[in-house]
């Protein structure tokens, strides 16, 4: 795809990386004030921001908010429906669902942010090098990106987790390893389009050196596109993380985590539906929060598309 004179980057792997707009958003850094204004004028974006803020608060204050110890089992009180002492009921080991959902936000936040951050760091480094130097460097780096891009995310992640063992860190690493190519492609194509922009040509004409041009002129402008992608895809990463748990290869099952809760609840379908509905709602609200924020950010950066 890299050979097209017109970039088609931005269409990521279908299951996890929703397409960024076909044209990379280009915003001059001086426009941040206006971008913020446009963002805040967008109702959904603000709702998203509130949801994300709530998520962070819940994650930070989970111990204060939780009515019970999320690990405490009560075998005499298993599978109690919602109500009474346990607002959202208890699971098959008599643990309080509400507390487990509240604590589950911690894993979601950590994995979501860390894996996307890591993916962005790798992706930006590779994409910037490829986009700026072009030619041989570009070819080699983009072929490597292709290899990881073409790998199915979940399978790659499962293999890495089996090698590294279960746990939060392996999950973060495995998600990042297979999602950085999207960032690279996005950044690279954005750089390619910015590279010939007037202000970069002007900088070059004024005798700025390569490194300076990348750091001062190209990156800040290309990074806008990456940021919108990142915000949007934190949600995707959280889903992927829950999917791994759902498939039984994520974090250990005793850890309060939404995917784990769903995996344990799956066979109770039709008899104890509250076991999977509440964690599902938690996931959906979280993902929507990030999606709204990502959307809002994209629209704010590129208002044409509204």
């Amino acid at each position, binding site marked *: *795809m890299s*050979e*097209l*004179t*017109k970039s*088609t980057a931005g*269409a*990521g*792997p*279908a*299951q996890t990386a*929703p*397409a960024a*707009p*076909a044209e990379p958003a280009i915003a001059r850094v001086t426009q941040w004030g206006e971008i913020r204004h446009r963002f805040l004028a967008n109702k*959904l974006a603000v709702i998203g921001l509130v949801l994300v803020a709530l998520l962070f608060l819940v994650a930070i204050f989970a111990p204060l908010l939780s009515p019970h110890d999320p690990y405490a089992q009560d075998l005499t009180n298993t599978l109690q429906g919602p109500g009474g002492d346990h607002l959202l009921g208890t699971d098959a080991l008599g643990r309080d669902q509400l507390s487990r959902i509240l604590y589950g936000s911690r894993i979601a936040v950590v994995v979501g942010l860390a894996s996307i951050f890591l993916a962005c760091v790798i992706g930006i480094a590779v994409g910037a090098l490829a986009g700026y130097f072009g030619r041989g460097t570009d070819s080699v780096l983009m*072929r*490597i990106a*292709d*290899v990881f891009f*073409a*790998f*199915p995310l*979940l*399978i790659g992640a*499962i*293999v*890495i987790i*089996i*090698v590294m063992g279960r746990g939060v860190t392996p999950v973060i690493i495995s998600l990042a390893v297979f999602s950085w190519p999207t960032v690279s492609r996005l950044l690279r194509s954005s750089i390619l389009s910015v590279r010939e922009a007037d202000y970069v040509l002007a900088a070059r004409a004024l005798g700025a050196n390569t490194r300076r041009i990348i750091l001062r002129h190209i990156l800040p402008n290309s990074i806008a596109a990456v940021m919108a992608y990142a915000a949007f895809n934190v*949600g995707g990463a959280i*889903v992927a993380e*829950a*999917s791994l748990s*759902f*498939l039984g290869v994520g974090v250990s099952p005793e850890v309060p985590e939404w995917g784990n809760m*769903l995996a344990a609840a*799956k066979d109770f*379908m*039709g008899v104890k*539906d509250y076991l*999977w509905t509440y964690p*599902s709602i938690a*996931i*959906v*609200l979280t*993902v*929507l929060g990030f*999606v*709204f924020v990502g*959307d809002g950010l994209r629209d704010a950066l590129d208002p*044409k*598309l509204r």
Partner: protein
Amino acid sequence: MGRYVIRRLGQMVVVLFGATVVLFCCLFVLPGDPVGSLGGDKARDPAVVEQLRERYGLNDPLPVQYGNFVKNLAQGDLGEDFTQRRPVTEILQPKLVNTAELAITAIVIDIVIGLLAGLVAALFRYSFWDVLITLLTTMAVGFPSFVIGMVLQKAFVVELPWFPLISDGTVNSLILPAFTLAILDAALVARLMRGTMLEVLRADYVKTAIAKGLPRRTVLFKHVMRNSIIPVVTYLGISFGTLLGGALITEAIFNWDGIGLALVQAVQQQNNPIIIGVVSFGVAVFVLLNLIVDLLYAVLDPRIRLA
């Protein structure tokens, strides 16, 4: 053009090579003996284990194993799986058909729903329908496929028994998994379609087309569509490539006997020939579809030069 395709196919081989090398290295360092146990946690007779290791060349060093794999692959042979000891190609073939069935249905749903919704939203911008569609498509992006799958299952299998849980080979059993798979992509297609179409509708050549006295449907379905569809085709192509590689979660939820499910099981059982077969296939299809999309892009947009 011809040279371009050849060069791209060459790159494809490089990517496939890279992916299989990465995969081999991963599988090689996995703890556990892939032929060490039976279906359950019962250890195999050591003599049988040794015999099987020999038979499948598992005692060879990694480069030799990889060399053999490449040699066999060149002849279209993916080896024998470790549990049933049947040819991998024979095992995967019907599963591939199932996955393809699902992928095609899903992509058709994507196209129909996605394009239609995007079209309506763009044409009636800011109308009730636009707001509704924008809201729904945004929501859809927020629903993980396993949640969608479980909700659909609960609603249309358990509560309203309209669809069978077990595939009975009819279109009926295809509908729920295909929808589960399609919802996200359909939403993304709709969003993409709306965005590009709004841009195209503003283009000068649309004005020209109207000024030429063309009927509205010609303007819309010839001049507007043809231009709006380009990024959508790109997206759908790549998405189709991913779908064909097997949908792990959806196939697991709906017990769809496709290569995605086979892959998950194979990973659990360390049934390496199946893993290698499915992943190689998935990567190859993905890269190939990327190439096709690029070619299609050049056909759809004459400004693109393939170089």
